[in-house]
């Protein structure tokens, strides 16, 4: 499977190895990920509630979105960077994790949802900018947005529960999960991602399994 070859090479980069072999780097990167996506979701929720007419109803929508969304995008960029950093440490495990995949699909939906907004209610902002709520299409987008982001948070959290030793999803044929989650079992053919300094016969066990819930 070419994608696994690619993901394996991602895991083998010095960058990924450094994070994986450090005791504190992964937890700190994960913390920054949490900080950035809480800011993303928190600020998006403010806009969604405004669209629904549930809060900030007396403020101009355009004024609010120009005030807030630049911070949302900055935080989102940080979430993507930290997310990619975490992904690189165990790329194959995440790639094959059903919850990680669901999270990625939901992120795409969040983007499409935004596009729908731009093509519908977004085109007529001048008509409802100072109205207490958006037209029906805008409200529908807001409800979907809140639902999608709550789903993304839940998927993100569950990834941590399904990628730690003992609760890994059933292995996909041809992918060896055990190697990079557990100390090497006997008779495994593929080498783990942390085998940089080891002799090859016994890859060093990863000092910190990143996904301690």
């Amino acid at each position, binding site marked *: 499977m070419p994608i696994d070859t690619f993901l394996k090479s991602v895991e083998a980069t010095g960058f990924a190895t450094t994070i994986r072999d450090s005791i*504190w780097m992964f937890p700190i990167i994960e913390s920054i990920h949490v900080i950035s996506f809480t800011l993303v979701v928190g600020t998006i929720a403010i806009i969604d509630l405004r669209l629904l007419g549930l809060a900030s109803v007396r403020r101009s929508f355009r004024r609010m979105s120009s005030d807030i969304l630049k911070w949302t995008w900055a935080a989102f960029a940080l979430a993507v960077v930290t997310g990619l950093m975490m992904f690189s440490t165990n790329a194959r495990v995440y790639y094959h994790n059903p919850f990680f995949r669901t999270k990625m699909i939901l992120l795409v939906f969040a983007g499409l949802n935004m596009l729908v907004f731009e093509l519908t209610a977004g085109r007529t902002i001048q008509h409802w900018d100072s109205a207490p709520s958006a037209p029906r299409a805008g409200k529908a987008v807001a409800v979907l947005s809140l639902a999608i982001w709550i789903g993304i948070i839940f998927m993100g959290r569950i990834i*941590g529960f399904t990628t730690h030793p003992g609760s890994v999803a059933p292995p996909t044929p041809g992918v060896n999960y055990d190697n990079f989650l557990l100390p090497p079992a006997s008779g495994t053919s593929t080498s783990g991602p942390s085998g940089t300094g080891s002799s090859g016969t016994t890859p060093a066990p990863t000092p910190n399994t990143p996904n301690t819930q």
Partner: protein
Amino acid sequence: MNRFAHWLAKTSSSHTLRVHESWLIPGVQSIHIIGIAIIMGSLLMIVLRVLGWAGTDQTLRETTERFGPWILGALCLQFVTGLVMILAEPVRELVNFSFWTKMVFVAIGTTLAGIFLLRFPRREQQWNTFVNGRSFKSLAIVTFMVFLCIIVLGRLIAYDHIWGSWSPATTGY
């Protein structure tokens, strides 16, 4: 505390929570994260308003009246979901250096947020010079930073071993 945590873990309510562990613990944790998202979004708006970087079409009072109740409501949500998580996994939480450090920061953060939300807006007239002053802005930034620390420490509960000998290191986590 260690003994208390182990006793709590043996109670039937703790057991019930763990029996449904597959979805209940991540579910409650997700709600806890949604709660902190509400707090961070709202706090960011207030801090940006204090700094004059956003929401300048609103007064500080309007801004705190808009976002303050959400922060206080979410703090209550955090308290409840936090208690559920402690009950579900008492040893993981209570025998944990990150957890107790987080609690210290929660106490500081809640006090600072309380000052912002309850005291200043009501006296905005009298405090006008102070509100526009530098120390007020610094206080807003400090409050925000305290909440950043709360998030980091909250996440580090799962990685308490990184504190080395400071951590009461429970085996199995």
